[in-house]
C-alpha cells in the first residue's frame, strides 16, 4: 500500500479533531488572553509529540502478526464508535455536533471564571482550557497516527498527514477568527469511521492468520463494502415521515 491513503486518512481524521480543538482555543484566546492560551496549546502539542515519539518506534518493535491483531482490533472498535455516532447523527437520533453552540458555551464559562496566575502562566484558566482541549482532541489523532503509521512502518507519513491538517485548520481559524461551523464534521467522521473500520478489519483478520483474497487489493473491495453497509444502515434508520426521532438521554451530545 502506498503512503497516500495513510496520509489522507490521518489528514481527514486530524482535521475533524483540529476543528474541535480550534473552537476551544478560540474561546479561550478571544475571551481571556492569547498568551496563556498559546502556552496551554504549546504544552499540549509537546505532550502529544512526545507520545508519538515514544510509542511510535516502540510499537513497531512488536512482531507484525501480533501488531496487526492488536492494532486491528483497536482500530475496528474505534472505527465502529465513530461510524455508530456518525450514523446516529445522520439519522437524527443524536444531536449534530455544533461548533457555534460549543463555542458559545465555552465563551460563557470563560467569561465567568476568575483570574489566577501560576508561575509563568498569567491566566491559569485560559492555559488549562486550551491545554485540555488540544490534548483530549489530539489523543484520538495520536492513536490513529501510531496505529496506522506502525502498521505501515511509516509513522513519518502519518505525522505529515496530521501536521498538514493542524496547519490547514489553524491557518483557516486565524484567518476567520471564528469557529469553523461550516465544516461538514459528521460527513468527515462518517468517512473516517469507514476507513478506520475497514483497515481495522483488514489488519485484525490478517493478525488472526487470515489470508485475504487478492492480498492488499482486498482493501479496495472492503472499503466500499463498509461504506455501502454504513449507508444502508443510515437509510434504513432514517425516521419515517410523521415520526420524529428522539435522541436517547444516555448518548453524549458534545463528545467527539
Amino acid at each position, binding site marked *: 500500500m502506498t503512503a497516500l491513503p495513510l496520509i489522507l486518512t490521518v489528514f481527514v481524521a486530524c482535521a475533524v479533531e483540529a476543528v474541535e480543538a480550534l473552537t476551544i482555543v478560540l474561546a479561550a484566546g478571544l475571551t481571556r488572553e492569547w498568551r496563556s492560551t498559546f502556552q496551554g496549546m504549546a504544552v499540549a502539542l509537546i505532550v502529544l509529540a512526545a507520545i508519538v515519539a515514544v510509542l511510535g518506534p516502540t510499537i513497531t518493535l512488536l512482531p507484525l502478526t501480533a501488531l496487526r*491483531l492488536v492494532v*486491528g*482490533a*483497536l482500530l*475496528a*472498535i*474505534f472505527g*465502529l*464508535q465513530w*461510524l*455508530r*455516532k456518525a*450514523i*446516529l447523527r445522520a*439519522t437524527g*437520533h*443524536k444531536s449534530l455536533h455544533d461548533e457555534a453552540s460549543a463555542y458559545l458555551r465555552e465563551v460563557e464559562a470563560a467569561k465567568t471564571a476568575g483570574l489566577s496566575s501560576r508561575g509563568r502562566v498569567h491566566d491559569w484558566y485560559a492555559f488549562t482550557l486550551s491545554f485540555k482541549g488540544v490534548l483530549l482532541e489530539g*489523543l*484520538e489523532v495520536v*492513536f490513529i497516527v501510531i496505529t496506522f503509521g506502525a502498521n505501515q512502518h511509516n509513522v513519518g507519513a502519518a505525522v505529515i498527514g496530521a501536521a498538514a491538517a493542524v496547519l490547514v485548520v489553524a491557518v483557516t481559524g486565524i484567518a476567520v477568527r471564528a469557529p469553523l461551523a461550516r465544516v461538514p464534521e459528521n460527513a468527515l467522521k462518517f468517512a473516517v469511521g469507514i476507513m478506520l*473500520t475497514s483497515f*481495522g*478489519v483488514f489488519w*485484525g*483478520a490478517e*493478525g*488472526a*492468520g*487470515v*489470508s*485475504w*483474497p487478492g492480498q492488499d487489493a*482486498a482493501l479496495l473491495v*472492503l472499503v466500499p*463494502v*463498509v461504506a455501502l*453497509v*454504513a449507508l444502508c*444502515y443510515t437509510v434504513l*434508520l432514517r425516521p419515517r415521515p410523521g415520526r420524529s*426521532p428522539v435522541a*436517547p438521554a*444516555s*448518548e*453524549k451530545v458534545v*463528545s467527539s
Partner: protein
Amino acid sequence: MRRLRSIGAFWYDFVIGDDWRVAVVVVAALALTAVLVHAAQVNAWWLLPVCVFAALGWSLRRAIRS
C-alpha cells in the same frame, strides 16, 4: 483512588465508547477467526466483516430503541 478511577473511566470511554458489546463482538470474532484458521485450517476471512456489520446494526438498533 478517585484519580485512578477517572483515568480508567477516560480510557474506557476513549477505546470502548458508548457500547461495550461492539468491542466484545470484535474480540470474539477475532478469536474465532484465529481458531478456525489455525485449528480447523479454514481461511475465514469473511467472518470478521460479517460480525462487524452485525455488531454495528445491533448497536444502532439498541441505541435507537433505548
